[in-house]
């Protein structure tokens, strides 16, 4: 172990891939159900993929709450954790995006066999899931923002416990910037409340993620390891 977080990435990639396979199976069952008892004319993965953002959020939280204390307990510095954490976020977000793109492709194949169109409801950087490079770009940027927001909120709660509540609005801003840059509404809640986000350049999502990472580092660079489990 030196400059690259091999085991940190490998362990998380493995467990995520297994969870992804299970989640895709559940989505497939839902799609079959809709096909049997209703009309299947649009992508089921598109709305289902919103849950992956929350997985990314909790991954960011766990990165600080679980992994940082482990690093420090094993004689590593906050600086090294910051470096490894940054690399992990930068690589894990595209990894999640690859899984999201794969799910669209699996869905496209299944729909083609059943002669069902894979229509999309939301605004995206892509118009067809076969535009894989754009799918990867969109989801990578989104997940980057969500993981960074999770890391920021996780760091704030780890350091200040209940005081971390004050940082949640900042996390929401980071997530909203990421969503506005790549989509049209905050997932789950935004659509129900009819809160449309303005369209902003995609690069804003990257800026939001960098902002989240920078704020996280400011919180953890001299954070004490907590005395309570």
């Amino acid at each position, binding site marked *: *172990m030196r400059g690259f977080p*091999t*085991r940190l990435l490998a*362990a998380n990639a493995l467990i995520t891939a297994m969870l992804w396979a299970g989640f895709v199976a559940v989505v497939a069952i839902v799609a079959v159900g809709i096909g049997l008892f209703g009309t299947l004319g649009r992508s089921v993965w598109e709305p289902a993929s919103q849950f992956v953002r929350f997985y990314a959020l909790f991954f960011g939280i766990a990165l600080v709450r*679980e*992994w940082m*204390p*482990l*690093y*420090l*307990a*094993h*004689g*590593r*510095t*906050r*600086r*090294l954790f910051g470096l490894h954490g940054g690399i992990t976020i930068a690589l894990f977000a595209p990894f999640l995006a690859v899984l999201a793109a794969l799910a669209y492709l699996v869905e496209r194949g299944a729909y083609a066999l059943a002669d069902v169109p894979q229509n999309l409801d939301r605004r995206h950087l892509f118009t067809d899931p076969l535009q894989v490079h754009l799918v990867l770009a969109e989801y990578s940027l989104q997940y980057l923002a969500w993981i960074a927001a999770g890391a920021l909120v996780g760091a704030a709660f780890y350091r200040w416990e209940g005081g971390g509540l004050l940082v949640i609005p900042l996390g929401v801003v980071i997530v909203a910037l990421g969503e506005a840059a790549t989509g049209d509404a905050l997932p789950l809640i935004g659509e129900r409340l009819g809160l449309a986000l303005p369209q902003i350049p995609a690069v804003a999502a990257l800026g939001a993620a960098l902002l989240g990472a920078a704020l996280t580092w400011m919180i953890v660079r*001299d954070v*004490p*390891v*907590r*005395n*309570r*489990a």
Partner: protein
Amino acid sequence: MRVEVEDLVLRYGDVTALDGMSFSLEGGKIYGLLGRNGSGKTSLMSVLAAFRKQTAGRVSVGGRPVFENGEAVRDIALIRDTGEAVTIGTAEDALYFAEWLRPSWDSEYAESLMELFKLPRKKNVKEMSKGQRSAMGVVVGLASRAPLTMFDESYLGMDAPSRQAFYDALLADYIAHPRTIILSTHLIEEVSGLFEEVVIIHEGKVLVHEESEALLSRGVSVTGQAAHVDTFTAGLRVLGERQLGPTKSAMVYGELDAARRRKAVEAGLELGPINMQDLFIHLTGGSS
């Protein structure tokens, strides 16, 4: 691994946990760190391990300041019952990451300790019993083979046979791989035999730092017929007494001169080393 602490201050808001503490440990020994609840033991070890940044003062390990110093902290292991070193998935996962993060990690030794404490490899550490979690901490702490290894009461959750197995393993590994070990404990009588030096801290300051033998020579236990013990100890500073039937044992603070020792022998009394726990209670202000 020499440890130097100079004018160390640590505050949590208005509370001063370490109040200008200074001492140095030459290293290569097993040290006992004793103190009452809230005396600052955990705070001190947290600063030594760079878990926490001091408010003021200097701390160096092996001649290097520790906070955010990668060269220094890789040689330091602190195991606490909060479990940050082990609560990451299953026991197997904990060992997998310890091996990756610790340059001095000994996998074979870790495996043998897992066998010794009969720990289930596939079980999530967070779901283990307190005793098993404590044993996981012991495994990771010992197998880290860090030149400065500290256990902060992290083995108290283990049952008596497991604690004895820990003491035996610690001593055997210390002899095979000499290093600096600091044990913080409330089980003073149980562990005191391992200590080569003792540091007692009280209200954030060092109260005593002595070799164990020198510390124990501060007092004497006097055992014999109750009446004779009472007569002999009259006028002496008695820290504690125990009586079983007609036999009584009294812990006396202060050295006995040759004349008094002779007098004790003449009265049929047996003189022995003082109990470290009684001495500790006395030095830190008596029982409360």
